[in-house]
C-alpha cells in the first residue's frame, strides 16, 4: 500500500514489500488472508516482486559502477565489479531463464568489450597505465571475450540497433530507480502465474479483472492526489503499465524496451491511457460485483477491506462470484491451494489459513463429512509442512492447533462410520459426495499421528529440561497418549493388522518407560491412596503390565516388519525390568537373540537396546544378581561413552570427529529428558557390582601372576583413588565406592557398609530406586557375605582354625549362612580347609603355597620365558628359516611342561588332604 503513497524511491518500495512478507505472521493476518482473492493477489505479487527487484537492482547497480569505472579508466575496479556482476547474474539465472537476458546487461557486455578493445589498441595509454591497471585490463579483456561468446547473438542484435538501447539507457539513467522496479514488474506478472495461477485459471475472466480492478482502484484512488503533486510517484508506478504490458506480451524481454520507449516518449499519453484503462476496469468490476454491495465507491471498497470486514462476510470471496458452493468446486479449490504447496514463494501460514477457511465454508455449506475429512488431512499436513527444516520443531501454538485438528478429525471418524480412509485409495476413486455409498477419502490418519508423535519428541528434545516450559510441554504427553489411544480404538475396528502393529508400537513407546506406581502399590498390598480423582481414575485403568503384554504379544504374532517387533521386544523387556520382573525380562532377552544381531539395527533401535540392557542390569542389581548386573552393564560402562550410547547427550570430545551434519543427526536421536536413565545411578550400580565381585577375587588370587581383571573401570577408579596424595573423606559417589572397596579388602564390612549406605549415597543413588529399603537390605547382606569371603581369603594363612561362631559374630551373619558360604568356597577349591562339625570350626589346611613357594613358581615361569627368548636367539643363529616353526613347537612344549609341573603341584596339594 505504501507503494502507492510512495515517492518512488526504490528502497522504500522494497521495504514495503519486505514488510509485506512479514505481515502474514502478524496477528492481524487472519483478516487479510481471508481476503486473499480480492486483495492478496497484490500482496503475493509484491512478495515475488521483491526478489526480482533485488536481483535486478543489484545488476543495475553493478553496471552503473562498471560504467563509472570505465569513465575514469580504473581497470582494476572494472574487473572486480565485472566479476561480481557475473556472479550476480548467475544468481538471477532462473529469472533470466524465464525472461531472457535483460537488454541492459547485454548492452553493458557489448559496450565493455568495445571499450576494452579500444583501450587495448591504445598503446600510448596503456603505457601510461600503472601496473595494476594494465594487468587488470588484460585479464578483463580475456574474460569478457570468453564470456561474450555465450551471448553472441544478443550482442550482435544490440550492435545492429544500438540506438534503441541507447535511448533506453538514457531513460534508465534518468529514472534509474524506476527502471529497476520496472523490469521487475515485468517478471512479477509472470511469476504471478506461479502463486496466483490457481486463481487465474479458476476464474479466467474474473481474477485478472479483479486484480486489475484492485490495482486500478488503488491507482485511481491515488491518481487524484498523487498524480499531480508527485511526478516521482509515476516513476515508481509503472505497475499498471507493467502488468498491462505483460498481459499483452506475456513478458517478452523486448517488451521492456517497448514499455520504456513508450514511457519516455509518450509518458503523458500512457498515463492517460492508464487512467482510462483503469476506469474501464473499474467499470467492469462494478458491473461484475454489484451484489457484494461494495460497488458504490471504489475507495469505499478499498477502505472496507482495510478496515477489517468481518471474517464470515468475506469468506465467500473464496468463491468470489457467489458460485454455488458444491463439492467439485471445493475440491478444485483445494487442489489449487495444494498446488502451491512446497513452492518457494508460498506463504505456508497463509496456506493453513486458507485451508481453515475452506473447512469452515465446507462445514457451513454442509458438504458432508467426506470433504471435511479431506480438508482436515490437508490442514494437518500443511501444519507439519510449516517448518521446512527437519530439525526445527513446531511452535507451541501450531502444536496446539495440530493436536486439536487431529482430535477433531478423530471425532469425525468416530462419529461417522461411513468414511473409509486410506493411503491406497487413489485420488480418482475418492468418493466425497454425500450419497448412499460410504465416503472414500485418501489419506492416512496413522501417518499423521505418527508424525505428531515425532513432533512431540522433537519439541521435548528442544526444550530446556530444567525449565517450567518443559513441564508444561510434558503435560501434553497425556494428550498425545490420548490421541494414540483413540486412534488405537479406531484402527482396531477398521485398520489392517499392519496399521494396528504400528499404532500399538506407538502406544508401547509411550508406556514402556513409565513406572506403574499404582500397580506397584497394589502389589505391596497397600491401599491405593486416592488423593484426588485423577488418581482414582488411574487406578481403575488397566495395569500397564497387562497392556504391554497384550500389545506386545499381538505384535509378536502379527508383525511382519522386523523393526517393529524388535522395538516391541525391547520395550517389553525394559518394562519388565523396570518393574523388577527380572526372570521374564532376562528370558525374553535371551529368547529374542537380540544380542547377536543388534549391531545390524539402525541407531535409534540400538539406543533402545542399550537402554534396555542398562535397565536390565539395574533390575538384576535390585534383585541381588550381582554378576548378571555386572555383565549387563559392562559393555555400556566400559566404553566410557554411556551418555552417548544411551542417547542422553553428546560427548564433547567427539566434536572434532563429526561435522555439523552428523551432529544434527545425532541430536535428533537423543532421548527426551523425561525418559533418561540416571547416569550416576547407573555408574554406581556398576561400580558396586564390580566391587562385590572384584575384591574377593583379588583376595583369592593375590599371588597369581596371571590374574585378569573383572572390571577395568573399577580398577581404574581404584588407581585414581590410590594416586591421591591426601585422602580426605569421600565426597563423590566414586570416592565412596573406592573407600568402601578399601575397607572390604580388609574384611571390614562395617566400614564398607557405612561408605556404601549413608546419607549422601542415599540421596545420590539409592533413593532413586522404587524399593529403596529392600535394595539397601540386599546390599548390606551382599557386603557382609563378600567381606566374609575376602576375609577368609586374605587371612586364612594366619589361622589354624576358626570358629564359625566367631565368624558369624564378626560379620553378623547367621551360622547357616556362614556355613554355606564356607562350604561353597571349599567345594570350589578356593579355600583349603575342612569343616569340623562337632566343634563348628573351620580347620585350615596349609596347602596354599607359602609366599616363598609362590615366588619360586613365579621364578620358574620367568625362567621359562627367558629360556624361550634365548632359544629364539639361538634359532636366529641357526638360520632364519625353519627355526620359527621349531620354536613354536618348543614353546608349546615348554608350556606343556610348565603345565605339567603345576598340575603336579596341584596333585600334591590334593594328596595332602
Amino acid at each position, binding site marked *: 500500500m505504501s507503494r502507492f503513497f510512495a515517492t518512488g524511491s526504490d528502497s522504500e518500495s522494497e521495504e514495503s514489500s519486505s514488510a509485506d512478507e512479514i505481515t502474514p505472521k502478524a496477528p492481524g493476518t487472519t483478516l487479510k488472508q481471508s481476503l486473499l482473492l480480492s486483495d492478496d493477489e497484490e500482496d503475493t505479487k509484491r512478495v515475488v516482486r521483491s526478489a526480482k527487484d533485488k536481483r535486478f537492482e543489484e545488476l543495475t547497480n553493478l553496471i552503473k559502477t562498471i560504467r563509472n569505472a570505465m569513465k575514469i579508466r580504473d581497470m582494476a575496479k572494472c574487473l572486480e565489479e565485472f566479476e561480481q556482476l557475473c556472479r550476480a547474474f548467475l544468481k538471477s539465472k532462473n529469472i533470466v531463464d524465464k525472461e531472457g537476458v535483460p537488454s541492459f546487461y547485454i548492452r553493458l557486455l557489448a559496450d565493455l568489450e568495445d571499450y576494452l578493445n579500444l583501450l587495448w589498441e591504445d598503446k600510448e595509454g596503456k603505457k601510461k597505465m600503472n601496473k595494476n591497471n594494465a594487468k587488470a585490463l588484460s585479464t578483463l579483456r580475456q574474460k569478457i571475450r570468453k564470456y561474450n561468446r555465450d551471448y553472441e547473438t544478443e550482442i550482435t542484435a544490440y550492435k545492429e540497433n544500438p540506438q534503441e538501447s541507447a535511448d533506453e539507457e538514457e531513460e534508465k539513467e534518468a529514472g534509474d530507480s524506476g527502471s529497476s522496479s520496472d523490469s521487475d514488474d515485468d517478471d512479477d506478472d509472470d511469476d504471478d502465474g506461479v502463486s496466483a495461477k490457481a486463481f487465474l485459471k479458476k476464474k479466467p475472466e474474473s481474477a485478472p479483472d479483479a486484480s486489475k480492478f484492485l490495482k486500478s482502484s488503488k491507482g485511481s484512488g491515488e491518481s487524484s492526489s498523487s498524480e499531480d503533486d508527485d511526478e516521482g510517484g509515476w516513476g515508481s508506478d509503472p505497475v499498471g503499465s507493467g502488468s498491462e504490458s505483460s498481459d499483452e506480451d506475456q513478458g517478452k524481454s523486448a517488451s521492456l524496451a517497448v514499455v520504456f520507449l513508450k514511457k519516455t516518449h509518450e509518458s503523458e499519453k500512457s498515463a492517460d491511457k492508464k487512467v482510462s484503462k483503469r476506469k474501464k476496469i473499474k467499470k467492469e468490476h462494478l458491473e461484475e460485483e454489484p451484489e457484494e454491495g461494495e460497488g458504490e465507491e471504489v475507495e469505499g471498497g478499498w477502505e472496507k477491506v482495510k478496515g477489517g470486514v468481518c471474517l464470515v462476510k468475506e469468506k465467500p470471496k473464496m468463491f468470489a462470484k457467489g458460485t454455488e458452493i458444491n463439492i467439485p468446486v471445493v475440491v478444485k479449490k483445494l487442489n489449487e491451494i495444494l498446488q502451491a504447496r512446497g513452492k518457494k514463494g508460498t506463504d505456508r501460514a497463509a496456506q493453513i489459513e486458507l485451508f481453515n477457511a475452506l473447512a469452515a465454508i465446507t462445514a457451513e455449506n454442509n458438504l458432508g463429512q467426506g470433504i471435511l475429512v479431506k480438508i482436515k488431512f490437508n490442514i494437518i499436513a500443511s501444519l507439519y509442512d510449516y517448518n521446512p527444516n527437519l530439525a526445527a520443531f513446531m511452535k507451541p501454538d501450531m502444536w496446539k492447533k495440530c493436536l486439536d485438528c487431529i482430535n477433531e478429525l478423530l471425532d469425525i471418524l468416530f462419529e461417522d462410520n461411513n468414511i473409509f480412509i486410506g493411503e491406497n485409495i487413489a485420488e480418482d476413486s475418492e468418493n466425497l459426495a454425500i450419497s448412499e455409498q460410504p465416503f472414500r477419502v485418501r489419506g492416512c490418519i496413522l501417518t499423521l499421528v505418527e508424525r505428531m508423535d515425532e513432533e512431540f519428541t522433537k519439541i521435548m528434545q528442544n526444550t530446556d529440561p530444567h525449565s517450567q516450559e518443559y513441564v508444561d510441554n510434558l503435560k501434553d504427553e497425556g494428550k498425545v497418549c490420548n490421541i494414540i489411544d483413540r486412534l488405537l480404538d479406531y484402527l482396531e475396528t477398521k485398520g489392517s493388522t499392519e496399521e494396528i502393529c504400528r499404532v500399538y508400537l506407538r502406544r508401547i513407546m509411550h508406556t514402556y518407560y513409565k513406572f506403574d506406581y499404582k500397580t506397584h502399590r497394589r502389589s505391596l498390598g497397600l491401599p491405593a491412596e486416592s488423593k484426588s480423582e485423577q488418581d482414582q481414575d488411574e487406578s481403575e485403568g488397566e495395569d500397564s503390565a497387562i497392556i504391554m503384554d497384550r500389545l506386545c504379544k499381538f505384535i509378536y504374532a502379527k508383525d511382519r516388519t522386523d523393526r517393529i517387533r524388535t522395538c516391541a521386544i525391547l520395550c517389553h523387556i525394559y518394562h519388565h525390568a523396570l518393574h523388577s520382573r527380572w526372570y521374564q525380562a532376562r528370558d525374553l532377552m535371551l529368547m529374542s537373540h537380540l544380542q547377536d544381531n543388534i549391531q545390524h539395527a539402525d541407531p535409534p533401535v540400538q539406543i533402545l537396546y542399550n537402554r534396555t540392557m542398562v535397565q536390565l542390569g539395574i533390575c538384576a542389581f535390585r534383585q541381588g544378581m550381582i554378576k548378571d548386573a555386572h555383565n549387563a552393564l559392562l559393555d555400556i560402562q566400559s566404553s566410557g561413552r554411556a551418555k552417548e550410547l544411551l542417547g542422553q547427550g553428546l560427548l564433547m570430545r567427539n566434536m572434532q570427529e563429526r561435522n555439523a551434519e552428523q551432529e544434527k543427526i545425532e541430536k535428533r536421536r537423543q532421548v527426551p529428558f523425561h525418559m533418561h536413565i540416571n547416569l550416576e545411578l547407573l555408574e554406581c550400580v556398576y561400580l558396586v557390582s564390580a566391587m562385590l565381585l572384584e575384591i574377593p577375587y583379588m583376595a583369592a588370587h593375590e599371588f597369581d601372576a596371571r590374574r585378569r581383571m573383572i572390571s577395568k573401570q573399577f580398577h581404574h577408579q581404584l588407581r585414581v583413588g590410590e594416586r591421591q596424595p591426601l585422602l580426605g573423606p569421600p565426597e563423590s559417589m566414586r570416592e565412596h565406592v573406592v573407600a568402601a572397596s578399601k575397607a572390604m579388602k580388609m574384611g571390614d564390612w562395617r566400614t564398607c557398609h557405612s561408605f556404601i549406605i549413608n546419607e549422601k549415597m542415599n540421596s545420590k543413588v539409592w533413593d532413586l530406586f522404587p524399593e529403596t529399603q529392600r535394595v539397601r537390605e540386599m546390599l548390606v547382606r551382599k557386603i557382609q557375605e563378600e567381606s566374609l569371603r575376602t576375609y577368609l581369603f586374605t587371612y586364612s594363612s594366619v589361622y589354624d582354625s576358626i570358629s564359625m561362631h566367631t565368624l558369624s559374630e564378626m560379620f553378623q551373619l547367621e551360622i547357616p549362612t556362614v556355613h554355606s558360604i564356607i562350604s561353597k568356597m571349599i567345594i570350589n577349591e578356593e579355600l583349603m580347609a575342612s569343616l569340623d562339625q562337632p566343634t563348628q570350626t573351620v580347620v585350615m589346611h596349609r596347602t596354599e603355597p*607359602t*609366599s*616363598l613357594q609362590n*615366588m*619360586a613358581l*613365579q*621364578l620358574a615361569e*620367568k*625362567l621359562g*620365558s*627367558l629360556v624361550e*627368548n*634365548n632359544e*629364539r*636367539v639361538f634359532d*636366529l*643363529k641357526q638360520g*632364519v628359516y625353519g627355526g620359527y616353526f621349531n620354536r613354536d613347537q618348543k614353546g608349546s612344549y615348554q608350556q606343556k611342561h610348565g603345565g605339567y609341573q603345576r598340575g603336579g603341584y596341584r596333585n600334591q596339594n590334593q594328596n595332602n588332604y
Partner: protein
Amino acid sequence: MAAVCGNADVFTGRVPLRNPSPSFPRVFTTQAASVRAPGPVISTEMASTAGTLDSPVKQIQIEGMVVLKIIKHYQEEGQGSEVVQGVLLGLVVEDRLEITNCFPFPQHTEDDADFDEVQYQMEMMRSLRHVNIDHLHVGWYQSTYYGSFVSRALLDSQFSYQHAIEESVVLIYDPIKTGQGSLSLKAYRLTPKLMEICKEKDFTPEGLKKANIGFEHMFEEVPIVIRNSHLINVLMWELEDKSTVADKHELLNLSSSNHLEKSLQLLMDRVDDMSQDIVKFNTYSRNLSKQQQQKHQYLQRRQQENAQRQSRGEPQLPEEDINKMFKPPQPPPRMDTLLIAGQVNNYCQNVKEFTSQNLGKLFMAEALQGHN
C-alpha cells in the same frame, strides 16, 4: 721380611716405613701409580709372577683389625640395602697381598655434591703416613645386600683401580650372612681378559665374542687368609673354651625363609632384566640379518645390472658406499647382560650355599632327634 713385618705388626700395630722418601700418596690415578712404580721389592717380583700366573696376587692376607673395622663401619653407617665403601691399605709381598689397614669413605648425600673424594683420600693417607701407618693403596672394600654387587659401577671402579694399581682388589663384605654367624668376606679381581675388554671399551657382541669371555671369567676370587697375632689367637681359644653350649647352638638355628625370599626376589628381578636384554638382542640380530639379506639382494641386483650394462657396452654404475645405504643397526651393549648373568650366578651360588647349609642343619637336627 714378611715374618719380621708380621712380628712388628703384632707388637706395635705399625708397619715400618718402607718408602722413606716423601713420595706422593698412592691414589688410583695413573700419575700416582707412576710415582709409586719405582717402589722397592715389588716390581721385579711381579714381573716374575705375571709370567707364570694370571694375576700378580695369589693370596690375600687380611689383618683381623681390618675385618673388624669394616664390620664396624657397616654397623655404624650402613642400613638395609645401603652400601658402605672404604679404601684398603697394605702392600704386596711376593704373590701375597697383605692388607694391614683401611679407612672408610664418608656416606654420600645430596647436600655435599662438591665433596672431593680424591682430596679426601689423599688427606687421609697423608695423615696416616704421618703416624707411621701403612699408607699404600691396595684396593677398596664394599658392603653388599644379599650378595648383589656385580654391577657396572663396581666393574668401572675396579677397572680403574686395577688399571692404576695392578694388584688392587675389591673386598666384598656381606653383613647379612655375617649376621647369621658365618663371616662372609670375599676378595675379587678382574680377570686379565676383562681388563683387556674394558681397556678397549668394546662391549659389542662381536667384541665380547672375540674376547671369548663368559660371565664365569669376569671376576676371579682370591683366597683370603685372616691373620691375627698369636696373642689374639690365644684369646680366641680361651673364649671358645669359655663359651656355653647354648651360644654354640645359635649356629644350628634354621634362619628364616626371609633370606631365601629376598634372594629369590632379587634373582627374579635380574632374570626379568635378562629377559629384556635378550629380547633386545633378539630384535637386533633379526634386524641385522634382515639388513644383511637386503644388502645381499641389492648387491646381486647391482651386479646383474652391471653385467647387462657391460654387455650393452654402457659404463658401469658407480660403486656407492653400501654402508651408507644400509646403516647397520646399533648393536646393544652386551656388558650389562654379562654383568647380570654374573649377578644371577652369584645369587644362585648364595642360595645354593644357604640351602645346603640349612639342609645340613636339618639332617643334623633329625639325627639328634633320632638319637634322643
